[in-house]
């Protein structure tokens, strides 16, 4: 990887989700050289882990494929996966970005034929499915993974299983001696697009996510609904594998709460509204969704989507933040307790499954690698970006895909301006 050439007219993009990919493609299409660094083994970020997108309810593959095509076809973009930024030093127009590239143990010869995984039996939790199931320790991160190249989990190195995998590969693509590499990249500007991660639901003690099998998170629910997911798209209860038809959604689970995340995560109301569609899609009129909410925040044009869900007879809305959840040991059902705000009626409502609409928090702490201002929740302050490091997408705020992409485009424009300034100085 010593062939990575970078100058102070290069734009380094950190994070290969929809925001980072957008930034990379747009900068490259204006003629800039881009290095895209992604921490995980493949691009796409969390959008890939959704079953469908609101508001149009299309599959994430469609938006993603267009971006991938633009990205693959552009020689100005260099993608490094398993790449972790250690430090960003310098100033606008002249940054040194230190990066560690972790070994994949599989090289460019890989055709993703999968022969290597054949003889392997060791299993590890599958992070693509939020650890809901396991996968072999020699794996393709997801069906849509880019690059389409297998990975070997580091825990396998030094075991006979690793040797078996190597022997099974017909393309001589496995290199068990691969080492971590340290690189220092020169860059004129940096776009920081490390996205978000779900709030740790176990911390919301009264909801018992860590105690009750049938209390799950909204991101896990996306995987259950997805035919490529751990249940092949069937909504099955973790406790007993039975179909869950009566599903409760709890809004603001960890958001708008001074004990957890102070901010409104902005997309989770829409995510739950969307997920009631999954229930309808699977069960028709036999499914039941109940949304427990403080207030529904379906911003601007999403109002139509909200009204459509409101009109669906299988969806009920209860204006109340659930106080706590208990479990009926025998049936595994969850019982939600609280008081509703419209009339102050006390309820003890039983459901098959409860989905916590968890909040979004920053995916990475940029302050560990660079001196950049963040807000009280750790999101990058857009207005403070006076030098050459710009936040994009969910690294700057809790955003839906549309807004994340807008934010990425805006930041890319700023990065391009910095790089152009450098080019002018050098041309003089």
């Amino acid at each position, binding site marked *: 990887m010593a062939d990575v050439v970078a100058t102070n007219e290069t734009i380094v993009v950190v994070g290969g989700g929809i925001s980072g990919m957008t930034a990379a493609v747009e900068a490259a299409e204006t003629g800039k050289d881009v290095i895209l660094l992604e921490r995980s083994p493949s691009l796409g970020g969390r959008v890939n882990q959704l079953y469908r997108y609101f508001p149009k309810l299309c599959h994430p593959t469609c938006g993603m494929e267009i971006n991938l095509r633009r990205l693959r076809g552009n020689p100005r973009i260099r993608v490094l996966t398993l790449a972790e930024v250690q430090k960003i030093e310098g100033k606008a127009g002249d940054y040194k970005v230190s990066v560690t590239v972790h070994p994949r143990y599989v090289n460019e010869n890989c055709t993703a034929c999968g022969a290597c995984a054949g003889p392997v039996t060791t299993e590890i939790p599958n992070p693509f499915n939020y650890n809901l199931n396991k996968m072999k320790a020699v794996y393709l991160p997801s069906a849509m993974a880019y690059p389409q190249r297998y990975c070997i989990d580091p825990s396998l190195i030094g075991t006979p299983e690793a040797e078996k995998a190597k022997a099974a590969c017909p393309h001589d693509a496995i290199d068990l001696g691969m080492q971590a590499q340290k690189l220092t990249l020169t860059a004129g500007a940096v776009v920081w697009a490390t996205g978000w991660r779900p709030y740790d639901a176990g911390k919301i003690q*009264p909801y018992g996510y860590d105690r009750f099998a049938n209390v799950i998170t909204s991101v896990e629910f996306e995987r259950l609904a997805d035919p490529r997911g751990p249940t092949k798209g069937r909504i099955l209860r973790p406790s007993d594998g039975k179909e869950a038809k009566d599903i409760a959604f709890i809004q*603001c689970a960890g958001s*708008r*709460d*001074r*004990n*957890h995340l102070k901010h409104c995560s902005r997309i989770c109301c829409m995510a739950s509204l969307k997920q009631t569609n999954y229930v309808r899609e699977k069960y028709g009129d036999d499914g039941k969704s109940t949304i427990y909410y*403080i207030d529904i925040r379906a911003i601007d044009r999403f109002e139509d989507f909200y009204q459509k869900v409101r009109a669906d007879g299988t969806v009920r809305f209860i204006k*109340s*933040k*659930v*106080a*706590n959840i208990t479990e009926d040991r025998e049936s595994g059902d969850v019982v939600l*307790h*609280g*008081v*509703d*705000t419209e009339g*102050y009626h*006390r309820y003890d409502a039983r459901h098959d499954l409860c989905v916590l609409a968890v909040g979004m928090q920053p995916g990475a702490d940029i302050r560990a690698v660079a001196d950049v201002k963040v807000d009280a929740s750790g999101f990058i302050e857009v207005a403070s970006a006076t030098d050459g490091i710009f936040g994009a997408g969910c690294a700057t705020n809790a955003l839906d895909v549309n807004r994340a992409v807008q934010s990425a485009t805006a930041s890319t424009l700023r990065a391009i301006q910095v790089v152009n300034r450098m080019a002018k100085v050098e041309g003089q």
Partner: protein
Amino acid sequence: MGDQNTSMVQKYRNDFLKEVEANVEEGAWVKMCMQCGVCAGSCPLGPAWEHPPQEIFMMIRAGRREEVLKSESMWMCTSCYNCIVRCPRELPITHIMHGLANYAHRLGLAPKMNPTRRFAKIFWDNIAKSGRVNELELSVRLYFMDGFKAGVLKGLAMKDIGIGMMKTGRLNPFGLFAHKGCKDIKGIHKMLKKAYEIEDRKKGFVA
């Protein structure tokens, strides 16, 4: 006391929220409530309340002054603090409940027969007299607050606990005749008087 009430009504007209903000302990927090309902659902005594805290806060904003101040609800609070630790907005709900109860009491609007109010009053008079609780007098007054017969019955029901307390020195059997107060009783009375003055001034009560 009725005069206090009239003067407050005149001072704040229909703005009960303002009145609460100015006169009730931690009352300034009331407007921060976002009506999520977590406090109402988290209260272990919740089902016994006529109006849970969430509803009380809304009633204050809606100016339902009489209903709030005459309510038994805030007297139900046992200070378990469940609501405070869970409120997403960190309202000091427990303190507001006690503040409201105290305010209603001072205006003479609190329900006369509310047992919590009566106990609190007996307890306060007891401790304020000598600076130290006289357990025997307190128990006797409490048991007999609903009349002689009820008092005897309650006393009998509690007798084992009473004897146990005597044995461990927690209850002085001669307390009605010889109660050991604090050393400087006069000083304590002076201090309490001063505290009352300060509170009255702060809350705008006419002395």
